[in-house]
């Protein structure tokens, strides 16, 4: 199943709008739209707010977000997410909380979100919840979240598009042949 289908990313700076704010997106940064919920939310709730995140394959954690973004963008109070432990980043201990992430599909070849059910990502190890002073300016979706959910990421550098999908029969066949 295709989740992100030929999602464009820019080689020049651009902006993304969230909660009435225009936020800068740097060149070569891919923006995905996500929602967060408690881990026990098994069925998608259409009232769950969505917000942008940077897809960063250099991040070796699941998901990183600041407290204010969690409250204002995701619509969740930090206290609603169970604490699981901590990670260490830039010398600071960052609390990790249990959560489920929902990755919204795009309209094929466009940055626009498709109005269909998002894909649920199980985040064993939780999300890193930063104090605002040290939080990233936009939430970050890391490679661990994609890996642990057995997703397939492809980047078409020539067309500046990327795709994320579940494992399909073609990929399985190619693996067998290689």
């Amino acid at each position: 199943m295709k989740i992100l289908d030929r999602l464009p990313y820019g080689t020049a700076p651009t902006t993304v709008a969230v909660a009435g704010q225009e936020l800068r997106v740097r060149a070569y940064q891919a923006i995905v739209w996500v929602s967060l919920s408690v881990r026990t939310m098994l069925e998608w709730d259409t009232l769950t707010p969505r917000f942008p995140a940077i897809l960063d394959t250099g991040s070796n954690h699941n998901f990183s977000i600041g407290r204010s973004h969690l409250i204002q963008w995701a619509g969740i109070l930090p206290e609603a997410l169970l604490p699981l432990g901590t990670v260490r980043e830039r010398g600071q201990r960052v609390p990790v909380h249990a959560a489920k992430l929902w990755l919204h599909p795009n309209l094929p070849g466009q940055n626009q979100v498709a109005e269909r059910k998002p894909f649920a990502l199980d985040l064993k190890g939780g999300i890193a919840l930063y104090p605002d002073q040290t939080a990233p300016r936009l939430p970050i979706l890391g490679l661990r979240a994609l890996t642990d959910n057995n997703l397939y990421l492809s980047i078409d550098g020539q067309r500046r598009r990327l795709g994320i999908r579940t494992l399909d029969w073609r990929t399985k066949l190619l693996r067998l042949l290689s």
Partner: protein
Amino acid sequence: MATIELTDEQRQTLREGLGKPVEVVDPATQQRYVLLGREQYERVRSLLENIPDREALGSPKGVPPGIVRSQQAFWRDLPELLRDKRNHGKTVCYHGDQRIGISTSDEPLVRACLRQGIPDDAYDLFIIGPRDIPPWETEAIEDLGPQHFENGPAEA
């Protein structure tokens, strides 16, 4: 833990107590016991069972004891789980010492916990795969680069 079913009279007393602990007496021995809700029990369980202090385990304050116990059980069982290659990459769920199950996704395991009435703060889920530190220890992750902050590198 052994399970005893409530009588109708006990259920009524508990309802009337609005969630407060209820004292129970054994008429044969006059031994007194306290009946308290599962969630209340989970909060004081570590004190009763002398679970090692969370700070001593490297885990922060605030991690529910039920999750710490689940993490300890997973770490204890991981070598055995890894011996079966079919487990690799799958999800395992623990409720304290009890293994709820192994699955390809969280959903059936979370549903199993809900069916069994296990509160959210009394279980945890893990990927079965090699790992070098226990789940309760603080893992060092890659530092976020300057591009993730407002005063990051200038645009070209």
